[in-house]
């Protein structure tokens, strides 16, 4: 099915199952520990041997020699894989550094060997016996120092590196009120709870990988390219994924080395990254330096807006596209955005939840708070005044498909009690706490991706959905069941959903918050095809046939859907492909975050007291899991604001705090009640589901709302994330802190 004209009324609009809050259908398996994750496939690959990855001890340079003898003769060791034994390897199109390093080392903790043994304990110990001689080379590890050498990156998924409209410099120069500030965000780690893990087994020249990966088709392609074998010799199975957040978008070392290890050992091998390896071995979100200039009139109406971003990555890598939202969020005739990319020899930078916007809004939405203060306009009102209903770079000929930004701001403010905020900072005290409120816009591009599915029905009316779509905690199982149930008029209990298997039709996968909308739209297409088959079998004209209550009905004639499918059952497969509606219309999701913090008047400890937000993201397919996505993302925003930072050792070129005791993410005690309002919205240009993504929207702007609340509480304006105690104390002079 090609989606190239706006959706009209369709069976999803009935809203009997889709759009209704449902418990997750995979819930009972998850809460009983019976959902199998990648390292737990005793059922599928019994007697798997254990692989342990050895990571490079240097960040840049080369391996001079590897002495494997001690490890080889250690108890239980079955095989050792290194660059010398692995055979010729290619590299996946989506990997920047090689997944198996050597002799050239591209980053710290890059995998250089896999030790395979008969037990986990033996593998882990033997791995310590490898003797590796390195010749380290001087590397580049300091973004600020390399900023001057940054270049224009090639166009990537975020669009062109630079955009402009009008004349920014002139417009900014003549503005009555100016904000011109620089902001920095640090390297961050996905820190999903399940480490990257894979169980691999060869059957002749065919490879099966039970792995933890967000994008099944990418994994197949990149594994084929790396192993130099045909794609049809590779099967990826990933039904349950213990969190990804972008960290499992790509083929990683666990998968490659499990495959190589299973080949070397002649039996199934399983490999999980050890937690302390994850931050340096895998990908991370790149640090940024951002300069934002906003020129406005005295009423806060923006005339000129400029956003420049510097980030770094390994040679061949890509930029953090943090100016993305600035192209679309606010009005202004004179505009400029620019991304510059420096080469760094730190571990590979890549996508993490809402790449671009998540850190772009950390900066932009402080800048807007600064503009609000400079103009004396309330921060909510300032954003309302600068709303624009079309792509401000392209002009009115490219309207938004739907944009309920102003409604989000108004309703969110009302629910939160924003009117009680005291605009003057440092005025509200509750015991030892300085109390402040802050807000920020939420914005995330609405991406779509072609997505396929097949759907079958048996003689009892039981429906089976198969697609290589993944559920990384997002709720894919449930929304796909809802979609099939709605389309075929059966109860959700009558639907079985099978995901994460490359034997199933290719889907959009889970990334860029495009998964839910795209994958359900793909299933919608398959269901339309199945409905046509069923209607044809009933002898009904498809466009007049109604599917409900387990019946296929035309007027007062009806047949049970199972009976129509017959003993042999009936299958249909299709996919959704998206046409130029994404070019004709700017498509995005919107929201407004509100936050109340307390800041200890003496110690500057920050505690989030309340959070709330209003969001418009098209049809909300399952309000229950969608809310969970949003509060989870808001919490990641709190982490970004208050604690998350990979500390770079600029001498050795690695992330120092590479475990969960030192890389802090929010815990229960950090997070209070979180209120989420979804606005009623149907976006008919987005897909037949009229839905958009929501899994990333919640992080976009959340951290800036925290930052602005801290400012309101204390009068301290920090522009260097995370906003930790040391930075607050450094600016206590003249603030409300004691």
């Amino acid at each position: 099915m090609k989606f190239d004209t706006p959706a009209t009324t369709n069976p999803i609009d009935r809203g009997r199952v889709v759009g209704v809050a449902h418990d997750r259908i995979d819930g009972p398996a998850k809460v009983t520990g019976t959902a199998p994750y990648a390292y737990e496939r005793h059922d599928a690959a019994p007697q798997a041997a254990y692989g342990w990855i050895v990571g490079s001890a240097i960040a840049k340079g080369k391996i001079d020699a590897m002495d494997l003898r001690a490890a080889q003769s250690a108890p239980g060791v079955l095989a050792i894989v290194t660059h010398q034994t692995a055979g010729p390897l290619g590299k996946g199109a989506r990997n920047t550094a090689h997944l198996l390093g050597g002799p050239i080392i591209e980053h710290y903790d890059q995998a250089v060997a896999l030790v395979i043994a008969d037990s986990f304990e033996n593998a882990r110990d033997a791995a310590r016996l490898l003797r590796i001689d390195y010749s380290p080379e001087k590397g580049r590890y300091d973004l600020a120092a390399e900023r001057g050498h940054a270049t224009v990156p090639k166009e990537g998924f975020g669009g062109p590196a630079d955009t402009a409209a009008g004349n920014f410099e002139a417009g900014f120069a003549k503005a009555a009120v100016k904000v011109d500030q620089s902001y920095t965000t640090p390297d961050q780690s996905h820190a999903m709870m399940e480490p990257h893990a894979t169980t691999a087994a060869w059957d002749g020249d065919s490879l099966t990988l039970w792995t933890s990966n967000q994008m099944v088709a990418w994994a197949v392609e990149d594994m084929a390219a790396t192993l130099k074998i045909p794609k049809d010799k590779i099967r990826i199975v990933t039904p349950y994924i213990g969190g990804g957040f972008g960290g499992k978008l790509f083929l990683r070392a666990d998968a490659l080395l499990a495959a190589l290890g299973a080949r070397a050992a002649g039996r199934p091998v399983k490999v999980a990254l050890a937690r302390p390896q994850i931050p340096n071995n895998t990908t991370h979100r790149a640090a940024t330096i951002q300069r934002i200039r906003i020129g406005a009139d005295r009423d806060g109406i923006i005339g000129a807006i400029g956003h420049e971003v510097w980030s770094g990555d390994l040679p061949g890598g890509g930029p953090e596209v943090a100016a993305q939202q600035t192209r679309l969020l606010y009005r202004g005739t004179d505009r400029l955005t620019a991304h510059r990319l420096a080469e760094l020899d730190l571990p590979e930078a890549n996508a993490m939840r809402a790449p671009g916007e998540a850190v772009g809004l950390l900066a932009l939405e402080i800048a807007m708070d600064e503009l609000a203060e400079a103009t004396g306009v309330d921060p909510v009102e300032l954003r309302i005044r600068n709303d624009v209903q079309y792509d401000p770079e392209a002009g009115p000929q490219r309207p938004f498909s739907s944009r309920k930004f102003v409604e989000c701001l108004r309703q969110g403010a009302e629910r939160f009690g924003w009117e009680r905020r005291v605009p003057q900072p440092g005025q509200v005290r509750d015991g030892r706490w300085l109390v402040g409120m802050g807000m920020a816009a939420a914005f995330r591009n609405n991406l779509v991706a072609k997505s396929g599915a097949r759907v079958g029905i048996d003689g009892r009316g039981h429906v089976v959905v198969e697609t290589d779509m993944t559920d990384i905690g997002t709720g894919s199982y449930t929304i796909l069941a809802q979609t099939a149930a709605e389309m075929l008029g059966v109860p959700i209990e009558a639907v079985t959903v099978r995901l994460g298997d490359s034997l199933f039709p290719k889907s959009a996968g889970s990334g860029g918050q495009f998964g839910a909308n795209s994958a359900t739209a793909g299933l919608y297409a398959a269901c339309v095809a199945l409905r046509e088959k069923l209607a044809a079998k009933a002898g009904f004209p498809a466009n007049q046939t109604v599917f409900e209550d387990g019946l296929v009905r035309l007027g007062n004639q009806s047949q049970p859907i199972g009976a129509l499918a017959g003993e042999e059952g009936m299958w249909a497969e299709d996919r959704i492909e998206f046409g130029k509606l994404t070019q004709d219309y700017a498509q995005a999701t919107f929201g407004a975050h509100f936050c109340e913090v307390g800041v200890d008047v003496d110690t500057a400890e920050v505690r989030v007291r309340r959070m709330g937000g209003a969001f418009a993201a098209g049809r909300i397919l399952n309000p229950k899991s969608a809310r969970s996505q949003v509060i989870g993302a808001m919490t990641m925003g709190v982490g970004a604001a208050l604690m998350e930072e990979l500390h770079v050792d600029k001498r050795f070129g690695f992330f120092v705090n590479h475990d969960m005791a030192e890389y802090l993410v929010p815990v229960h005690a950090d997070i209070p009640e979180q209120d989420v309002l979804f606005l009623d919205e149907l976006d008919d240009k987005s897909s037949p589901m009229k839905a958009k993504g929501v899994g990333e929207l919640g992080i976009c702007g959340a951290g800036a709302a925290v930052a602005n609340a801290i400012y309101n509480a204390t009068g301290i304006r920090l522009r260097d994330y995370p906003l930790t105690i040391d930075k607050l104390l450094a600016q206590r002079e003249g603030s409300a802190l004691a």
Partner: protein
Amino acid sequence: MKPFTYSRAASVEDAVAAASSGGRFIAGGTNLLDLMKLQIETPSHLIDVNHLELDRIERTPEGGLRIGAMVRNTALAAHPDVRRDYAVLSRALLAGASGQLRNKATTAGNLLQRTRCPYFYDTRMPCNKRKPGSGCGALKGGSRSLAIVGTSDACIAQHPSDMAVAMRVLDAAVDTVAADGTRRSIPIADFHLLPGDTPHIENQLKPGELITSVTLPNPLGGTHVYRKVRDRSSYAFALVSVAAVFDGQGGSRFAFGGIAPKPWRVAAADAAAAAGAGAVAQAALADARPTAQNAFKQQLVASTLTSLFRQKEARP
């Protein structure tokens, strides 16, 4: 984790005898196993001392409290006498780690837990504590969480315990038995050692010497406060912590965590209480040698003390 043999000691005598031929005691295991997995600790023999009946808390004849070495952190924090008479100890314990860890971690083990310095934890990095003579990776590296006082050029690692800070302010004594059966009581002030040129030697214990109990002197009365400041609300090590007892007769005592290689207490700081938080901080940090990354801890010590004085005044 290097291979080791394992035995379960049935008595204290049994345990120290086993240790005399080269073995390490394992109690809760929450720190030792963590480090063994990384081969930072590589004992060849483990002696399980969980079954020595060292898990009792009892009053001493003098009116103090003897805490068995194997008393779990949870049990100690919840003990009625501790809650009533040594509240600073309850508070410190409850500020540390997580419920799960406190259920395993023992009184003796907590005293012996090793630093959280990231260079100590990454065996590819230089660290004089882990590998004497290899240098200190932290001194010119990531040092934000590390010690500012009591350090040396060889090591700036911090002691991570909360419990030990409260023990220090209470003037606890560490009771031990050596392999030859000799028993001694080591004042906690002397128990932990500063790094100097030998940061790998962290305490007074001799090889094979077993902690059997920790004894608290008679209750001090007064107001007990433990204030811990960290980068998140729970389940994190201290940037700075302060254990304080205000005895009600104008006497005060302070011990500090997160800032030194051992629970930090300076007599001059106790004496400065009347002059206020700033004076206490100044006395406590008289010889501080922070790095650029952790210099903020000096101010944070003062701020935490200010907060703590406020907290105390807010209470009757």
